[in-house]
C-alpha cells in the first residue's frame, strides 16, 4: 500500500464527506421548496436567487441560538447523543460505490472508499447503532416527551430493521455476494434487481422510511403529541446535528435503494455508445446521483402525501405484515434459485 494510494483514498473520503454534507444541506432547501410546490405555494425564495442561500441562513441561525442544557440532564450523554447520530449518519457512505473506476496511467482508482466483502453487513451494523444516538439523547434530556420519543424510536427501529434485513437477504441470495460493488456490477445495463425483487424493494423502501424516522413513520418526533420527541430539550447546533443527520440519513438511504435495487451507477444501453471506460464512469456517477435525487424527492413526496401512522398501526405493519412478507419473499427466491440450478 503506497503513499499515493492512501492519499487518493483520503481525498476521496473527504470529497464524499463533503458531498454528503452539501447534499444534506440542500435537501433542507429542497424539502421546503417541494413542500411549497405540493401546497400550491413557492417555498423560501428570498435569500438569494430562488432561495439558494436559505440553508446557509438556517445554519447561521442555529449557530447563533442560545446553547441550553437542562439542569438535570446527564452532561456527557447529552452531548454524546447528537454527536453519535451525526457520526453514524456519515459512516455509511464509506462502502457505497459512488461510481465505477478511473484508469489513469494503467492504475485503477475505484470511486469507493472501502470495497469490503461484507458491505451489506457493515451498512446494517452501522444503521443499528444509529438508534443509540437518538436513545441516548432522549434519555439524557431527562424529559418525559424526549424519553417517550426515544423509546418509540428504539422499538420502531428494531422492529423495522428485521424486515429490512430480511428483504436484503433475498438480494444477497440472488447475487451470491455481500459486497456492494459486486451487487452493483451484477446489475449491468438495465438488469436491475428491482425487476426480480419488486416485493423486496417495497419492503425495503417502507423500512427505509421507518429507519430514517421520516413521515409517515415519524412517531419519535411527532410534533403534535411529543413536541419534538427525542430532541425536545435540544437547542442550537446540537438540535442542528439531529435535524441534519436526518437529512444525511435520507441521502444515504436513497443511495442504498439506488445501489441495491436500481443498478447503482449502471444505466440502460451503457455499452452501445462506445464510450471509453473513464467517460462511462463519469456518466455513471451522474446517473447514480440522479437516481439518489429522485429517491430523495420521493421521500419528500411521501411526507407530503401520507398522514402519520398510529403507534399500534406502525407495530402491526412492521411485525405482522412486513416481516412475514419478507420471509415469504426469501422462500420464493430460494425456490426459484433451486429450480434454476436444477434445470
Amino acid at each position, binding site marked *: 500500500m503506497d503513499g499515493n494510494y492512501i492519499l487518493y483514498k483520503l481525498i476521496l473520503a473527504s470529497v464524499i464527506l463533503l458531498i454528503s454534507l452539501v447534499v444534506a444541506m440542500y435537501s433542507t432547501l429542497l424539502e421546503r421548496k417541494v413542500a411549497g*410546490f405540493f*401546497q*400550491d405555494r413557492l417555498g423560501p425564495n428570498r435569500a438569494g436567487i430562488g432561495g439558494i442561500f436559505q440553508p446557509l441562513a438556517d445554519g447561521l441561525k442555529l449557530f447563533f441560538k442560545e446553547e441550553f442544557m437542562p439542569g438535570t440532564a446527564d452532561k456527557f450523554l447529552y452531548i454524546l447523543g447528537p454527536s453519535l447520530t451525526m457520526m453514524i449518519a456519515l459512516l455509511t457512505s464509506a462502502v457505497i460505490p459512488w461510481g465505477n473506476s478511473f484508469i489513469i496511467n494503467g492504475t485503477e482508482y475505484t470511486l469507493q472508499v472501502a470495497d469490503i466483502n461484507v458491505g451489506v453487513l457493515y451498512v446494517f451494523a452501522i444503521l443499528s447503532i444509529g438508534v443509540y444516538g437518538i436513545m441516548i439523547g432522549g434519555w439524557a434530556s431527562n424529559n418525559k416527551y424526549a424519553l417517550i420519543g426515544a423509546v418509540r424510536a428504539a422499538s420502531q427501529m428494531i422492529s423495522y430493521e428485521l424486515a429490512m434485513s430480511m428483504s436484503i437477504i433475498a438480494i444477497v441470495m440472488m447475487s451470491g455476494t455481500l459486497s456492494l460493488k459486486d451487487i452493483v456490477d451484477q446489475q449491468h445495463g438495465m438488469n436491475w434487481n428491482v425487476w426480480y425483487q419488486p416485493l423486496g424493494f417495497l419492503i425495503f423502501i417502507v423500512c427505509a422510511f421507518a429507519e430514517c424516522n421520516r413521515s409517515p413513520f415519524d412517531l419519535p418526533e411527532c410534533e403534535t403529541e411529543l413536541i419534538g420527541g427525542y430532541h425536545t430539550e435540544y437547542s442550537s447546533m446540537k438540535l442542528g446535528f439531529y435535524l441534519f443527520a436526518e437529512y444525511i440519513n435520507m441521502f444515504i438511504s436513497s443511495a442504498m435503494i439506488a445501489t441495491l435495487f436500481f443498478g447503482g451507477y449502471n444505466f440502460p444501453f451503457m455499452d452501445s455508445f462506445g464510450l471509453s471506460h473513464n467517460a462511462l464512469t463519469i456518466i455513471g456517477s451522474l446517473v447514480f446521483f440522479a437516481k439518489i435525487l429522485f429517491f430523495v424527492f420521493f421521500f419528500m413526496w*411521501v411526507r407530503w402525501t401520507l398522514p402519520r401512522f398510529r403507534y399500534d398501526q406502525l407495530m402491526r405493519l412492521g411485525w405482522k405484515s412486513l416481516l412475514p412478507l419478507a420471509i415469504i419473499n426469501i422462500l420464493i427466491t430460494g425456490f426459484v434459485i433451486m429450480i434454476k440450478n436444477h434445470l
Partner: protein
Amino acid sequence: MSVSQNSDSLSGRSRVVSNKKMTFAEKIYLPAIFAGFGITISHFFKKNATIQYPEVKRPIAEIYRGKHVLKRDDEGRERCTACGLCALACPAEAITMIAAERKEDEIHLYREEKYASVYEIDMLRCIFCGLCEEACPKEAIFLTNVIVPSDLHRSNFIYGKDVLVEPVDKRVDISHRQTPEVLAFKKDKNQSHNS
C-alpha cells in the same frame, strides 16, 4: 306527541356509520397510497397561488375603504368645518377633533368660519366602515384605496392632519367613491342623515 326516534335528520346530511370489512385492496393500502401520490403530484405542477407581495400587489377594488383623506375644495381650502358628525357617527370612536375659529388672514386656508385645528383618527380603532364619510355634510372626509401601513409603535397609528389632509399640489382622486348613486343618496331628503 313525541317525535319518532327514527325520523330523518333535519339537515338531511346524516350518514350511517359503516363498519363493513375492508376489501383486500383497501387492507394493503397501496392503491389508496398511489392515488394520493397522484393527487399531490398534480398539485406540484399547478399554478401557485402566491403573490410576491412587496413587488407585486394584489389588485384591490376601486371603492376599497382604506386610509382616510381630508379633502380641500377647488381653491385649495380645507372643507372640514369641525362639526363632529363624523366623530359622532364613528362606531369605533376613532375620531377626535378640536374646533377653532378662522382668523381674518386664514380665509384662503379654510372654507368655513370654523375649522378643525386638530383632527386625529386612531387607525388601530378604525374599522374602515365608511360611516364618517356618509355622515359628513361638507364632503370633507373620504376613504381611499390606500392601505394603512404597518408600524412598530401604537402611537404612530394616530394619524393627524399632517397625514390626513390632501396636499394642495397632489390632489387625491375620490371620484370612484362618489358615484352618482352615492351623491343622490347623500342629497336624499328622505334619509335620516339629511333631514
